[in-house]
């Protein structure tokens, strides 16, 4: 009797279905591809047996180890650089009022919009062999530093990712109780002392999170290091995995799988260390009012603000360069200061259905990610149970798995029955959906955290059915917060390169692929056109989303 009643209650709960469906989906499209890669990494090619042979090969060979070293070196450098750029900028922006404060913010976010490989491509246009600045320098008899290699990758990655530091640290600063700093000052600390003894320690969790995000972003990136590292010349784990995968197609991709696993392992280690470090810092925020921005007075702070503006403008240079070059005549690999539309003419002749594909794949993936993200974000936040924890874990895995790795996993699992997806449009939609689902899940989860649970209880006590109550109460209240996650997911999906590169075929080519192909040894002019298109489409959709968000806020 009691069991029957319990079973009835179980079945009547629609959220359990959501949870089960979510877990099933993640098992097939997240866990399975990774498990397959793991299986391959333990299958010895030469010995034809299970074991650590592939890992011994990896760690015993300078060729593989070099990629690991390069990845770690480049990611550490980029992280330090991004912190140096982002933290002072966030501090100045949050704490001071000055002319152009808002435009500083917009410009910062703008430099985050374009995919990293377009940044790399633009830096090559400026500082590469035959780059505009390089040639100009040579004409003056100067020897210009090269943009290729580790330092170029660090710089370009940092310039692409410092906005993350700006956002994360900025929002932590905004939440910091201003009275704490005032208390320190009233106890006799000088401003710099206050910053070092109170502000900085309180920001530690945010600094750790930001560092983690930049580090992960850098080691997971494929396009940028491949362009600036020129493939084989300076291999990193992501490019190595991709090259190995290409050379192993048809055979068992043992070393590609092993390299992928090492990459995942590095990412996991970083996340674990980051989590532990931020837990160890034991900084809890117990509310209070944030500091009101003061007037920019001290000359030191003014200098930092000036540097900030310089950084922001420099970081946006790629956008400008790409847009300009798309209208410039090209001779060999060198742009001429002659206005022309011939690049556009060539570009549109070669484009095929790449633009259409991009919109369809990204659009479908975004709709799926939004629907699933809202439901999953809700259920993992409000239901504290073993299965909701499992779902939360599974759904977040793609957040730390580089696109190249997930792509290779998909290519090895879904290339035959029962799920023959390779080369189809469906696989694109699914891989985009799965990769960016974490963004929507996290943003809707944090929104759910902010919504008083008694609102839903009120709805239920008033007799509304659970799902209908969810639609009437939670969805409208979550919407403004979800939008942020959805917008970021859209930008990332539309510009996705690394997983696409593994999985696309002629029929499923996307705009980023088209741009990348042209930038990597094709026509630089056409590359500039495609990159400009990417930038414009992202900017327009971002603008629309922001407008939509404003309208949403005015509603209540």
């Amino acid at each position, binding site marked *: 009797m009691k069991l029957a009643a319990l079973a*009835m209650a179980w079945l009547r709960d629609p959220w359990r279905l959501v949870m089960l469906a979510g877990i099933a989906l993640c098992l097939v499209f997240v866990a399975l591809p990774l498990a397959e890669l793991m299986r391959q990494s333990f299958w010895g090619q030469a010995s034809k047996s299970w074991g650590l042979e592939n890992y011994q090969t990896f760690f015993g060979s300078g060729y593989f180890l070099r990629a690991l070293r390069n990845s770690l070196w480049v990611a550490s450098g980029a992280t330090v650089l991004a912190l140096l750029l982002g933290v002072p900028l966030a501090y100045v922006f949050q704490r001071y009022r000055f002319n152009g404060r808002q435009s500083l913010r917009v410009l910062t976010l703008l430099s985050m919009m374009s995919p990293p490989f377009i940044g790399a491509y633009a830096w090559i246009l400026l500082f590469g062999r035959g780059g505009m600045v390089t040639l100009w320098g040579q004409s003056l008899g100067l020897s210009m530093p090269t943009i290729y290699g580790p330092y170029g990758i660090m710089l370009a990655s940092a310039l692409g990712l410092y906005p993350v530091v700006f956002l994360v640290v900025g929002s932590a600063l905004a939440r910091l109780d201003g009275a704490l700093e005032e208390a320190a000052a009233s106890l006799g600390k000088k401003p710099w002392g206050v910053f070092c003894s109170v502000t900085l320690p309180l920001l530690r969790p945010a600094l750790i999170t930001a560092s983690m995000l930049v580090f992960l972003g850098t080691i997971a990136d494929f396009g940028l290091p491949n362009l600036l590292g020129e493939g084989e010349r300076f291999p990193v784990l992501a490019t190595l995995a991709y090259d190995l995968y290409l050379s192993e197609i048809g055979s068992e991709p043992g070393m590609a799988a092993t390299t992928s696993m090492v990459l995942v392992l590095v990412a996991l280690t970083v996340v674990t260390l980051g989590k532990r470090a931020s837990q160890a810092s034991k900084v809890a925020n117990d509310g209070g009012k944030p500091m009101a921005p003061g007037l920019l007075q001290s000359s030191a702070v003014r200098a930092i603000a000036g540097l900030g503006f310089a950084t922001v403008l420099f970081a946006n240079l790629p956008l400008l360069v790409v847009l300009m070059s798309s209208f410039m005549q090209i001779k060999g690999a060198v742009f001429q200061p002659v206005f022309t539309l011939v690049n556009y003419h060539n570009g549109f002749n070669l484009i095929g259905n790449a633009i259409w594909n991009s919109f369809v794949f990204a659009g479908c993936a975004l709709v799926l990610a939004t629907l699933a993200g809202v439901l999953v974000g809700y259920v993992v936040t409000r239901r504290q149970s073993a299965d909701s924890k499992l779902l939360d874990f599974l759904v977040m895995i793609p957040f730390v798995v580089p696109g190249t790795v997930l792509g290779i996993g998909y290519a090895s699992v879904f290339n035959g029955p029962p799920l023959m997806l390779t080369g189809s449009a469906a696989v694109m939609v699914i891989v985009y959906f799965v990769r960016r689902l974490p963004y929507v899940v996290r943003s809707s989860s944090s929104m759910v955290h902010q919504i008083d649970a*008694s*609102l839903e*209880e009120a709805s*239920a*006590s*008033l*007799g509304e059915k659970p799902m209908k109550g969810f639609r009437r*109460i939670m969805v409208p209240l979550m919407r403004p917060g979800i939008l942020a996650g959805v917008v970021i997911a859209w930008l990332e999906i539309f510009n996705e390169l690394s997983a696409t590169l593994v999985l696309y075929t002629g029929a499923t080519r996307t705009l980023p692929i088209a741009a990348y192909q042209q930038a990597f040894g094709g026509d630089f002019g056409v590359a500039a056109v495609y990159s400009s298109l990417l930038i414009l489409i992202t900017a327009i959709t971002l603008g629309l989303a922001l407008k939509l968000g404003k309208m949403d806020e005015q509603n209540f």
Partner: protein
Amino acid sequence: MHDMNPKVHIQQVSKRFGAQSVLNQIDLEMQDGEFLTLLGPSGCGKTTLLRALAGFYTPDEGRIWVDGVDITHQPPHQRDIGMVFQSYAVFPHMTVAQNVAYGLEARKLPAADIAQRVQKALERVQLAQLGERYASQLSGGQKQRVGLARAMVIEPTLLLMDEPLSNLDAKLRLEMRQEIRLMQRELGITTLYVTHDQEEALAVSDRIAVMHEGRMLQLADPQQIYQQPAHAFVMDFVGGCVWVEGRLAVHAGGGLCFEGGDVQGVRRLPASAGTAAQSGRTLRMALRHEHLQRSNDAGLPGWDGVRVELKTFLGTRFRYRCVLPGGQRLEFDLELQAQQSDEGELLSLRFEPGLACFFDAQTGWALK
């Protein structure tokens, strides 16, 4: 009020969270139209019991009936139970009128009916003019009126109130509790009210159930709760009192007395304090602060050398905070007309032995 069939019947309900037992075999019956309050400190289980009634928790053991129907495993939205929340839980994206209409819409009533009933409910809580406002444009008191109207408009079988006044300021709290009581009486809705504020509980309830550590210690009307507490915890929780530790003894002059502590003077106790056979049993004696009088009558028990530590002016009277010779603190009020003392002065206090309450020192239960 005392029907044969209870409106609500809670039978042997237990609930644990992990290793912690939050409700321990609770039995409770509520009569139709009754205003019953669950009173206790935070963590005593009162909110858990209320939420089990609402359907937000399922008890691990025991059953709950409402109107003779077992609702133990019914989901909340099928229970027809109105609820008022501590955080108000006014839907922020809806107007006041939309909030109140919410439950009626869920019941799929015709629009004309809904409009009419919403209007009437808003008039009852004095919000008729504010129907088109959003929650952000309301004060705390107004929000809680919306919460009340929203819960009452569906004419629920049972109304649950979870500390509805604790987020309001003191003055508004007094006003609102009177309004709630009047409205509940007018509509005759059976109401279960949860609070940690003993004064509030005494003021609004037909009956009070005092809870502590997942158990129900006493269920009685407010006067009994205050004057004849069944347990030392109840004594302490519902009003200020002074404790004296000691034991039961046979008095030299016959009868029983309370031995020990720092009480000066006669210690003869009423027969209710126990039997001669129980002498030697450790006891705790408790006295309400207001039962202490300024007097040095040698015929009454009490204390000499009570020091006035702090004297506070409260407008209509003075409040004295004093220290007993043994270090215990107590508070009592004196009218403005009465003879006043200064801080630092020593007083003598006496009490009528018949007003003292006695509790078993081991179990905490009152001596009968």
